[in-house]
């Protein structure tokens, strides 16, 4: 599993964190991040399972590949790379951290 992490090239890069719920668990992230970034930053192992059951995470990060689809606020099949986080957002992934 790839080991992703946030970097901080300049001091105080990010604003104050907010919380979203990932499979019901409180997860910190930052306003301006996409749901994909929040999930990768939290170490999610898989965003979705393919039709034959293999784990998938984002590939293109620009809305083309549809590998980053997750359930957001009850709506299925949302592209997490194209959706910005907001406080209290409920995200459901196949395999959490």
């Amino acid at each position, binding site marked *: 599993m790839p080991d992703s992490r946030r970097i901080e090239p300049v001091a105080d890069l990010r604003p104050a964190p907010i919380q979203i719920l990932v499979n019901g668990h409180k997860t910190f992230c930052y306003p301006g991040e996409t749901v994909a970034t929040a999930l990768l930053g939290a170490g999610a*192992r898989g965003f979705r399972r393919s039709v034959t059951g293999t784990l998938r995470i984002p590939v293109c990060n620009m809305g083309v590949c549809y590998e980053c689809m997750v359930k957001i606020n009850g709506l299925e099949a949302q592209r997490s790379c194209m959706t910005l986080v907001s406080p209290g957002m409920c995200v459901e992934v196949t395999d959490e951290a």
Partner: protein
Amino acid sequence: MKLETLNYDLVVVGAGPAGLTAALLASDAGLHVAVIDEQAAPGGQIFRQPPSTFNAPPSSAFASYPFGQKLLAQARNNIRIKWYFSTCAWGVFHPEKGGVQLAIVEGEHSHLLDCSKLLIATGAYDLPVAFPGWTLPGVMTAGGIQTLLKSQFLCSAQRYVLAGSHPLLLLLAGQLVDAGAQIEEVAIARPRPKVCELLAGWRALPGHWRMFGQLAGILFKLWRKGVPLRFSTIVTRVQGKEGVERVTLSNVDTNWDILPGTERHHLADGLAIGYGLLASTELARQAGCSVNWNPERGGWVVDHDDTMRTSLEHIYVAGEPCGVAGAEMAHCQGRLAGISIVAALRPDSTLSAISARRALGRAKPFADTVATFFAPRLDALTKLADSETLICRCEDVTAGQVCDFLKKHPHVSSVNSVKLACRSGMGPCQGRYCQHTVAHLVSAERNIAVNQTGAYTAQAPVKPIPLASLALVQQD
């Protein structure tokens, strides 16, 4: 939920260098303009910026393309243009009353935009390459890793292998080193450039010294960090349990065919794939614009005349959809398209296309040199897939399934027939990730040219949209 029909002189799809240039020019000339983009902010992929909530310096892409900074500033300050961000354009229709109608969806809200002219500036996306293991988590496009890094400040892995043949790969290598990531190897498929090739590329130099300087800086940085950069090297396999663990590389000949016995392995948790770009032509094809096959320039690309008009009277094209050529060409084509559209709608306009054509002429040698120098060998890349390799990631269709079907049905010679029978291309990406691989499989099996296998029929909606918004449009 609501459905509105709105009227514009010009609707532009895509807020990258081509679309923004045309939209701003047309708006300044007094046209009523709307711009649609899937991203949350202007700039397209090339000028994608850090979030406004972050305390970050602007994108480093401005160093290569200084015009970008001014373009984005003008876009942000233009309140005459109607901006539809986080909005997907999913269909072009031709109403009987004339003009063009564009269907868009913004969250759950659908709109129909009536316009006199439509400009398609939908950009390009990283060329997907199917090889054993490419669906494992951790294999990403070079563009995907780069946008996570430069606009989200997230490193998708810690130990990378970079494989491809596009110059973006070197840019990414430099950025990953700066971010503190480890790079095991940068594997470039094309052979080491010969002196005569480098000399033949001199026409690319004027006006691009800054870019060549940056490239030299990156090469020096990689050399100082001891990152191996090898030519005639291709990625052949990725292994791992539920993510990338081991990457296999092989040497290739000048046709990118694998040289047996040259395999070597790296332990890594990230693999960047950067073999080139495919033009995003789905919307143009759905609209009915004619296309031609140009594998050096992104596959199926949109035909246009010297005013950037497509085969359809009211539809124009600019940037990568008419042939992948980079941000500078996109900027010049956007300008030319904007001028042409203004001239078509305002016959008394005094805008002249002469300087736009000159700028295009100056940008072209660089784009041409890059295209020939780094052209992906799609035929060789298709051979990387073995029979177990998934070529359609959405429907999990293997190369073996497609080849078996072709063997059993000798009359089949089109990608559309394969799509109907094997389901490759029927998932949410709508064939963007598998079409060229299927085309090459059919071409190889039938011994026909790739362009004779056709393209998947592009139908509205060209991207998946909520059913509810579609139902509303049908009610209208």
